[in-house]
């Protein structure tokens, strides 16, 4: 039988507020355990939450970016369950009246553009972390993360392949990083993904029983986890079994999913409106004021890169996906005034070096200004592309502007025809054997033999001779010898 996969994603995005959603404690990552948990985060008796309106603003920004309705009156509710890293015994979240209503994003797939509808996005608080290692059979609780603001983005089950799911997650990542509402660091848990996966016979309209794959923190794992789970479900059904609704954990090391808890074990969360927080009333003027502050979004930027800068669809897609990279690219273009050259360098030499050094673009040792200055010198023939790579290497390791390096290292391209002619004369004079072969060769084969002389001249010039000028002069001098 041919099966169709149905996928919906719940993506948790940690908002980049300085302080927590309901307390004044810092949200910075990586501090010593429990040093960033105040009385409110510890749920000491008598403490009360105070809503951080910075989180509200960021959630509204996201809503506007996905063309969603913004809730006029968002209500925080309590989701009650016991767990040691949930200090209050409930998570403050939104259920009936979320801040962001229905919206959508468009993703690129192998079959063209596809729309993924977003059911809603709501604000909530993150839990702390339970640490099970190094405690000799006991567990440690770190509440630094408790109360970090999250936006949970709930999609409709609109994706049909693991690639689409990953593309959707990438698009959400591009939007939240472009908006500057999330640092996008998936390894630190800034964006985590739950995948709801089911299968059904192709052509069927009813949904199969779904399983939920929890807390996946990379795009690659999203694809692999879904593929693995789909395979498991197909095998199960084809062997006569049934899929049970349950939460499963993906183990990237073994590339398998395994059951965490079934629906029967699920909590009754006893949601009810949190009486400690007033409903968040959002007026239109406030939303419109936020709309005016929105940066250019990835889709719009991509269009502009294609239409105004003449980039290919692929290049424009890559360069618009991350705001910092797109900003960097545009600064380079502004400096060198050549979008294609800039795109090649940002996606080529720069990206290669950043990847090797495991650096993000905002930490690049070579600034956009430096790279742009370098490309200007390629464009005006001061240096060749190969020399430019050497200059870039110096910039990467030691810093400096292209002009300073070209000057200091004497890398300036030789375009003076007198100097080039005398170098060519020397080469011809010292290569009598090769000159004789050239002369003896059929005229149509002589072109290929130019290479040897080119190499000699470029070597003599230390690579600085303008290759175009060398070719022209060399050819006319050699051909003159043949007459």
């Amino acid at each position, binding site marked *: 039988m041919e099966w169709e996969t149905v996928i919906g994603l719940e993506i948790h995005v940690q908002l980049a507020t300085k302080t927590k959603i309901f307390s004044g404690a810092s949200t910075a990552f990586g501090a010593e355990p429990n040093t960033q948990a105040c*009385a409110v985060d*510890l*749920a*000491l*008796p*008598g*403490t*009360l*939450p*105070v*809503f951080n309106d910075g989180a509200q603003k960021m959630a509204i920004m996201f809503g506007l970016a996905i063309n969603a309705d913004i809730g006029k009156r968002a209500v925080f509710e*309590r989701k*009650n369950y*016991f767990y*040691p890293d949930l*200090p*209050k*015994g*409930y998570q403050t979240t939104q259920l009936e009246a979320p801040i962001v209503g229905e919206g959508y994003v468009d993703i690129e797939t192998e079959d063209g553009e596809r729309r993924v509808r977003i059911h809603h996005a709501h604000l909530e608080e993150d839990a702390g972390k339970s640490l099970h290692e190094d405690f000799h059979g006991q567990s440690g*609780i770190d509440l630094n993360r408790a109360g970090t603001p999250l936006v949970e983005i709930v999609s409709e089950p609109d994706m049909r392949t693991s690639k689409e799911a990953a593309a959707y997650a990438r698009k959400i990542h591009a939007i939240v990083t472009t908006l500057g509402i999330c640092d996008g660091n998936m390894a630190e848990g800034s964006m985590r993904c739950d995948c709801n996966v089911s299968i059904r016979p192709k052509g069927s309209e009813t949904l199969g029983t779904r399983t939920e794959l929890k807390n996946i923190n990379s795009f690659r794992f999203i694809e692999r986890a879904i593929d693995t789970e789909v395979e498991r479900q197909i095998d199960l059904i084809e062997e006569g079994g049934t899929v049970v609704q349950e939460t499963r954990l993906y183990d990237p090391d073994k590339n398998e999913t395994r059951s965490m808890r079934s629906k029967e074990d699920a909590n*009754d969360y*006893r*949601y*009810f409106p949190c*009486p*400690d*927080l*007033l409903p968040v009333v959002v007026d239109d003027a406030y939303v419109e004021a936020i709309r005016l502050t929105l940066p250019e979004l990835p889709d719009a930027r991509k269009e502009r890169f294609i239409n105004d800068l003449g980039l290919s669809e692929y290049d424009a897609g890559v360069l618009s996906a991350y705001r910092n990279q797109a900003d960097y690219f545009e600064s380079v273009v502004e400096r060198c005034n050549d979008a294609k050259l800039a795109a090649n360098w940002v996606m080529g030499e720069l990206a290669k070096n950043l990847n090797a050094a495991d650096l993000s673009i905002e930490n690049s040792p070579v600034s956009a200004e430096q790279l742009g200055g370098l490309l200007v010198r390629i464009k005006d023939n001061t240096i060749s592309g190969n020399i430019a790579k050497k200059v870039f290497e110096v910039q990467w390791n030691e810093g400096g502007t292209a002009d300073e390096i070209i000057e200091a290292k004497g890398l300036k391209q030789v375009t003076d025809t007198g100097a080039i002619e005398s170098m060519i004369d020397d080469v011809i004079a010292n290569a009598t054997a090769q000159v004789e072969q050239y002369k003896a060769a059929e005229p149509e084969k002589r072109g290929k033999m130019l290479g040897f002389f080119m190499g000699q001249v470029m070597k003599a010039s230390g690579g600085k001779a303008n290759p175009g000028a060398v070719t022209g002069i060399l050819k006319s001098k050699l051909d003159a010898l043949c007459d």
Partner: protein
Amino acid sequence: MRDMFEKTLSELAQDLRNGTVSSVELTQTFIDRINRCDSDYNAFITTTPELALQQAKAADERLAAGTADPFTGLPIAHKDLFCTEGVKTSCGSKMLDNFESPYDATVVAKFKSAGAVMLGKTNMDEFAMGSTNESSFYGVCKNPWDTRRVPGGSSGGSAAAVAARLTPAATGSDTGGSIRQPAAFCGITGIKPTYGRISRYGMVAYASSLDQGGPMARSAEDCALMLNVMAGQDPMDSTSSAHPTEDYTASLNNSIQGLKIGVPKEFMSADLDSAMAAQIEAAIKQLESLGATIKEVSLPNTRMSIPAYYIIAPAEASSNLSRFDGVRYGYRCENPKDLEDLYKRTRGEGFGSEVKRRIMVGTYALCAGYYDAYYNKAQQIRRLIQQDFMRLFEEVDLIVGPTTPSPAFNIGEKANDPVAMYMEDIFTLSLNLAGLPGMSVPCGQVNGLPVGLQLIGNYFDEARLLNVAHQYQQNTEWHTLSPVKA
């Protein structure tokens, strides 16, 4: 000469200003009284004599330096659900018997900065759940008028301590009547302000949408002095109100000529003890003689306040009390074998039976499938009750009636019949559901036991409540009666 401990806050404030007594002397007087007499009442869970004397000394310095606030040097006690830095805050529960708060509740901090002296922390029903003080882990507190009887609850310790002259005043909290009912039972004056008038930050939550702290003292004037310290918006409590505060002592002496008073017929019904009804009627006559006009009115949904309250309050409590899990602070069972065992035994052993009962009721009411039938329905009733009041306040300025259906009953009398106990709250609950301010003022006695008159005001009308109560007290002596034998 009257004993110092028989004086009101207002009188003591005057003495401190005049220098006829120092705060240290005053404080020592009450410390001695607590040491000598509290074994009869069990009004205090914790006393803090050393801290009190330190604060008194600092207050005397402020008084001498001329930097004193009106409250500087006056001793008070806090109900043991207000967090006090470095001093045990137990909420009357085994669960928090070992808990010392690292911070002060906003109310506590306000009294500290006003220069008040804290004598200690008063007894209460466990987590403020109860009307008798019998659910306290620290044993029942006794009514100073008759120690075989309950002082009321949940602020029973505060009411008993004030009545027994162990402190001139105390803080309380009122979720369904927990200031007004014990004030009535113990013959003192107490006010539950409008919801949001006083910060709840640091006041351990029972039912967040109903809880409100407030003053308990010997007179309306003293309550006004306290409210001046306690009232105001708090950035740490989102539900505290931005409504401007006022000097609540300023209008105490205004005439009440022309005041329109409504008396709900549902409050003067068969629920009310007949001897008490006579006392309430006499008090209403007294108000009429002071120039008020009296009108019978109706609050048709009063009876529904009991079922609505006993859904909403336990529902919120079931969630509010989830944090007591043995993980971070408070009681933890011995040698838990796993997480579930830790939760079950910690909570099973740490909470008393009334708290467990309300957690179970509240958990049930919020369960999937029951939510609409219980919690949502209760919220609808809550709106109806509020609308009843709003309609009345279009035609009257104030509503009066009894605070309780009967005077203080015997210890143990209703302990095994929770529904009979819940019925005792019939006249007080509806205000909490509506968020309105209410007061209880002593207005008579039945068989030597005090009777409380309840005054109910419109939102943020505390100054008018205090004004009416003060005018009543200027013309009556019920609030001056003392259970302390000379």
